[in-house]
């Protein structure tokens, strides 16, 4: 069963609706003892990364999250929280991945936020992307991205520059796109995560 870490950053209605449609059981994590109830975790998040990190720190759950050994998936800003630092609010993040979250340099040709469906190309073998062909489209909406890094980039996407659409280190995963809004491939990814 998936435990969703709640810390007040953004709505999780769409995520829980998607899990519900897929028949994947889930519950909410509000305090440290709740972690024991679940065998995997999702860190959701939308909005401002610096603000989200401040809210997460306010819960007191940060040391517990950093020590997690079960599969843990950060989505969108939830993924950016896993990095070392974000340019959004010049904020220190959880530092589970020694990579940075940077701002897109937008212009009239390449608009920011990067909004819409873009292609995702897996860079490593991993069951998270099982049954998802290379180049499948996922839904993105973000102004900051996680830099490409050969050691941690599980899947990449190119917009202005190549960046990490997904990252992976041990039991920690992140996806920049919104699987709960990414049609059937998004649902496949959530299903894959539920079986990791």
């Amino acid at each position: 069963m998936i435990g969703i870490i709640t810390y007040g950053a953004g709505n999780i209605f769409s995520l829980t609706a998607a899990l519900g449609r897929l028949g994947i059981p889930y519950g909410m994590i509000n305090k440290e003892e709740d972690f024991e109830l679940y065998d995997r975790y999702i860190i959701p998040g939308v909005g401002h990364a610096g603000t989200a990190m401040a809210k997460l720190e306010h819960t007191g759950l940060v040391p517990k999250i950093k020590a997690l050994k079960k599969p843990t998936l950060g989505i969108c800003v939830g993924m950016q929280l896993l990095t070392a630092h974000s340019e959004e609010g010049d904020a220190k993040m959880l530092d589970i991945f020694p990579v940075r979250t940077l701002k897109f340099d937008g212009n009239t040709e390449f608009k920011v936020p990067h909004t819409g469906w873009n292609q995702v190309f897996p860079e490593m073998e991993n069951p998270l992307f099982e049954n998802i062909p290379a180049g499948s489209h996922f839904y993105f909406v973000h102004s900051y991205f996680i830099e490409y890094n050969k050691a941690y980039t599980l899947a990449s996407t190119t917009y202005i520059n190549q960046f990490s659409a997904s990252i992976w280190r041990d039991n920690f995963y992140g996806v920049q796109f919104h699987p709960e809004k990414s049609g059937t491939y998004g649902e496949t990814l959530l299903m894959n995560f539920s079986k990791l």
Partner: protein
Amino acid sequence: MLSKRIIPCLDVKDGRTVKGVNFVDLRDAGDPVELAWNYSRQGADELVFLDITATVERRKTMVDLVKSVARQINIPFTIGGGINEIADADALLNAGADKISINSAAVRNPALIDELAKAFGVQFVVIAVDTRSMNGKNIVHLNGGRVPTEKETMDWILEAETRGAGEILLTSMDHDGTKAGFDNVFLKQVNDAVNIPVIASGGAGNVQHFIDVFEQSNVDAALAASVFHYGEILIPDLKKILKQHKIEVREV
């Protein structure tokens, strides 16, 4: 490559879909959630719901609609219509809306854009602009294009971007309902002037109009209603032809 988006727009009143021809005569075109589900299956990239319910219960009506859409649909959607304050936006975000679209309320109170962007992030804030040509100038209009304002459309769009709009939904009232094509010239001017995505709206009548708007203005997305609702254009066919014209699309 980032795909160009095809966005069916559903006008909703009291929980039912309607589409105004030039925003005046209303015709019933079905159940919004069922329509939305069908569009997501056909390959619509996103949906826009414009709620024109005018009762005191409107926020509750909109929240109920958003919840039922979010429960059943696996693509993003925007809700607009009568969002006047942070509390409206907050209720819709928590009900599962990906974006909100603000029109008149932002014109009346531009600081609302700053507040919304600060509270929820720019990605949540779509500024809808209805424009009509008057004496050779593009002027922002309110109330479905009936009421002109003092604002020139380009100035207003640039102001909205500066204040924190994450996207512009630009409807040409001169083209809306005509089925004679999008206002590609003005859309290009706007698209070339802003660093945020632009959604073209107003005038779609056939597949060529979508090819033209993407080729001539390079906007990120094109929105239409009746051509989709009445089956005059099927989204899979549209995307196939766009692809043949080397326009990047997502096919399902």
